[in-house]
């Protein structure tokens, strides 16, 4: 279909044919195409014909759903998705930059530092996605030069096994009670960005004394904080600290005996970011995708997969929302040093 010119497509016959091919009902497909067709950005993106996503935010399943929705809405653009861990994706992009290769059109990772660094070396392109207007106010205009934007909202909370715990801990402080000794599972800040954010936040709130007492609770330390869910489902431990909010809810929805407890002393919020590399081979397709992230379609997918949505007019799953919980986000210019210090303290005090 990429061979058909835009003019040819505008002819009714071509339009109906394409609508049928795109797999939707002819009627809705027609309407969708007609509006998409008016978009000059889509026209430019179609001319490029391809899009390569390097994403570490969201797990494979959600990311594939977003990709498929994009393909359905914008036929004629071949989408390649590389889903790897955020840090792997970033390292790969750096290798590509060093070796003069340009493959990536859209980068999506969970670490703000990736973007401040890429911006510093002039490796990002500015773009203002119009649909980002519907983002929660707190996350609008993260970068004054519009080089990067929110790509994902990730919450770190407590999770637990409902059948085995009479009353779950309701705060980070409560995790230090005697009853949880030998019962806690968590991830390692040296391997998991979310746990590293948690360590930074908890040190800001309660200082190193918290880490010392947390260490005395003899937590089981896995690699990723996803391991907390595994340990709870397996029955190895009953309470998870620094645990992934969305993923726990996904597992709960799948029927597994697990639930989240949002701490009263703040869920830790970590932003996933997205940006377009300066040398992206398909810059228009990249812009189209970036704007698509803030569409209703994507927020619906996020809601279905228990992720916080990227629009104020799309509710989260189970009727939850950001306003209902207390949350805290690490900000500041010296986060890299704070993370390194946090990991060192963790190694000294927790294990």
């Amino acid at each position: 279909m990429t061979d058909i010119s835009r003019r040819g497509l505008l002819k009714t016959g071509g339009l109906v044919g394409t609508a049928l091919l795109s797999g939707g009902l002819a009627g809705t497909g027609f309407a969708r195409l007609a509006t998409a067709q008016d978009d000059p950005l889509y026209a430019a993106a179609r001319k490029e014909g391809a899009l390569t996503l390097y994403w570490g935010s969201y797990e494979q399943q959600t990311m594939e759903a977003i990709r498929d929705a994009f393909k359905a809405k914008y036929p004629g653009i071949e989408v390649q998705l590389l889903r790897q861990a955020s840090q792997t994706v970033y390292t790969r992009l750096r290798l590509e930059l060093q070796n003069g290769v340009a493959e990536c059109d859209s980068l999506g990772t969970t670490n703000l530092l990736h973007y401040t660094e890429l911006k510093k070396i002039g490796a990002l392109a500015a773009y203002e996605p119009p649909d980002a207007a519907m983002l929660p106010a707190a996350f609008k205009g993260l970068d004054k030069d519009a080089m990067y934007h929110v790509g994902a909202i990730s919450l770190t909370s407590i999770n637990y096994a409902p059948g085995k715990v009479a009353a779950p801990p309701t705060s980070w402080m409560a995790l230090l009670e005697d009853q949880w000794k030998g019962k806690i599972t968590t991830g390692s800040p040296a391997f998991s960005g979310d746990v590293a954010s948690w360590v930074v936040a908890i040190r800001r709130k309660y200082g190193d004394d918290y880490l010392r007492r947390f260490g005395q609770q003899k937590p089981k330390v896995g690699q990723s904080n996803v391991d907390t869910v595994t340990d709870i489902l397996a029955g190895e431990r009953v309470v998870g600290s620094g645990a992934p909010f969305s993923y726990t809810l996904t597992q709960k929805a799948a029927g597994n005996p697990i639930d989240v407890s949002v701490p009263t002393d703040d869920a830790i919020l970590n932003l996933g970011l997205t940006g377009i590399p300066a040398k992206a081979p398909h810059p228009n397709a990249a812009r189209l995708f970036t704007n698509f992230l803030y569409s209703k379609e994507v927020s619906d997918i996020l809601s279905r997969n228990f992720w916080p949505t990227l629009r104020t007019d799309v509710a989260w799953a189970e009727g939850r929302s950001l306003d209902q919980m207390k949350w805290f986000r690490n900000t500041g210019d010296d986060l890299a040093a704070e993370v390194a210090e946090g990991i060192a303290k963790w190694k000294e005090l927790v294990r």
Partner: protein
Amino acid sequence: MGVISTSSRDAVARPVMARVPLVKATILGAVVLLLVLLVVQPFGWVLFNSLHDDATGAWTLNNYARVVQSADLIEPLVNSLVLAAATALIAVGIGVPLAWLVSRTDLPFRRSIRVLTLTAFVTPSFIGATGWILLAAPNSGWLNTAWRWLAGEGAGAPLNIYSMAGAVFVCGIYTVPYSFTMVSSALDEMAVELEDAATTLGCGVLRTMVSITIPLAAPAVIASFILSFIQGLTLFGVPAFLLTPTGIPVVTTKLAEFYQLFPPEIYLAAAYCMPLLLVTGALFWMRRRYLGRKQYVTISGKTRAGRQIHLGAWRWPALFLALLLPTVAVFLPYAALLLVSLTRAWGLGLSWENLSLYWYWWAIFGNSETHTAIVNSLVYSTLGATLCVALGTLVAYIVERRMMPGASLLGAVATVPIIIPGIVLSVGFFAAYTRAPFNLYGTPLLLIAAFAATFLPIAYAHGGSILKGIGPELERAARSLGAGEARTFLAVTLPLMGGGLVSGWFLVFIPIIRELSVAVFLITPKTNVMTTLIYNAKDGGNYEAVCAMSVLLLLITLLLVAIARPLAGLTGARRTSRKTATAAGVPS
């Protein structure tokens, strides 16, 4: 263990000079060129990186200074050496007797045990570790639960997989296939005159095995010990899963931390691999000292085919012992994986309502990426293993027959890649092949080349240990009858190596299929492989899918092995050597 000399060292060392130097020069040139492209260049990049600063990119020796000065970096090295040595001891300690039982005795179900050992080999180490976590985690492990059920609630947990002992155990059992395959193919090729002589002189079965058979297989035993040791040094999955919770760092988990830092310390990671090279270099030096003065030739112009040892009353006890490895490496962990893969939500435990084939359906039909990934995995492994075995065998031949000055240097070069942990090597391949003039990024060739290079040491070591057992007499006979070196190699040596080469091919094919880290920066959406998908599912915590895909990966590989069996049978060692011997006019 003074062993047998059938001819003097010099006679082996210097075959008749080539009469067609052009053909020989071309082949030697091609081998050297391939080694430069596949090994020297990527490794050169790793070395180059190790001499640069991560933050500034300037030349520096600081990375090495940090490695030797920081206690933080020395402790993981020591832990890795302990893990590697213990892994190698287990691998050889189990693999060698098992190989003897399967290759030389009338043990019942020999073929099944061969296949089951291969099955253990197919298992990516992180899958094996996952299986064993399900079995032997202190609170929830099924074996521990069973024990508490038998001995009473207060009985505690006899097994703790989250320990150094646990990691050694899992690394060990999944490394046994290396020693098993290498030693059993050496035993398959071996002639039996000396064993017969020992028996005639009144030696029992055990004494013959200990003082004749195993020493004759020494090159294979030692090569497999070294490979197992390296495997213990470079495995990531097992220590990441089993040692992180106990806070025991090893080199590979430390490397992962360097990559996880911001900014990532990639150049420091490169320098951190160099001590591994030194240690492995020392092992090879010791091997040379040990093997150098002895001869292990058993296939010569006078060869007869092998003979089976009757175990008699020991058959069934021996079978029980031989089944221990498949039990701990295949039956138990795969039973656990299979059960998880058959549940819709594994946290609900086993019940009829929770049983489902959903995840298999999802892995095969529900996920568009799986199809491409399966095809890619198979194509890359087949081509990569073929290239790897061809090159490794040629290098081994050149080194064993000393066909050119500096031949042993070629051997050293062919050994380097496997020592560098995959995640670091991946960066080396990236730098080596993505630039002009190669521009291989995004192409299958990039992965095939990287896989062939990574596992070249296995093909080389395996080829070398087979060649050490083949005497040069038949080659000389061919040469004196007028055949050139190339023709001699193709018509005499290669058929003699036959069955060993097929097992060598699997020894490379299977690790490629399950390899993860080397591919990490090299795969692109179009060239994705199965293990990356499995790891992504694990990363996303989708254990049911991980287990279903692992079971599928296992079934696919077993199916291939089954298809390849008749092929292996056709070129089977005994039959070939018997044919050759008959052709040479020797009654068999």
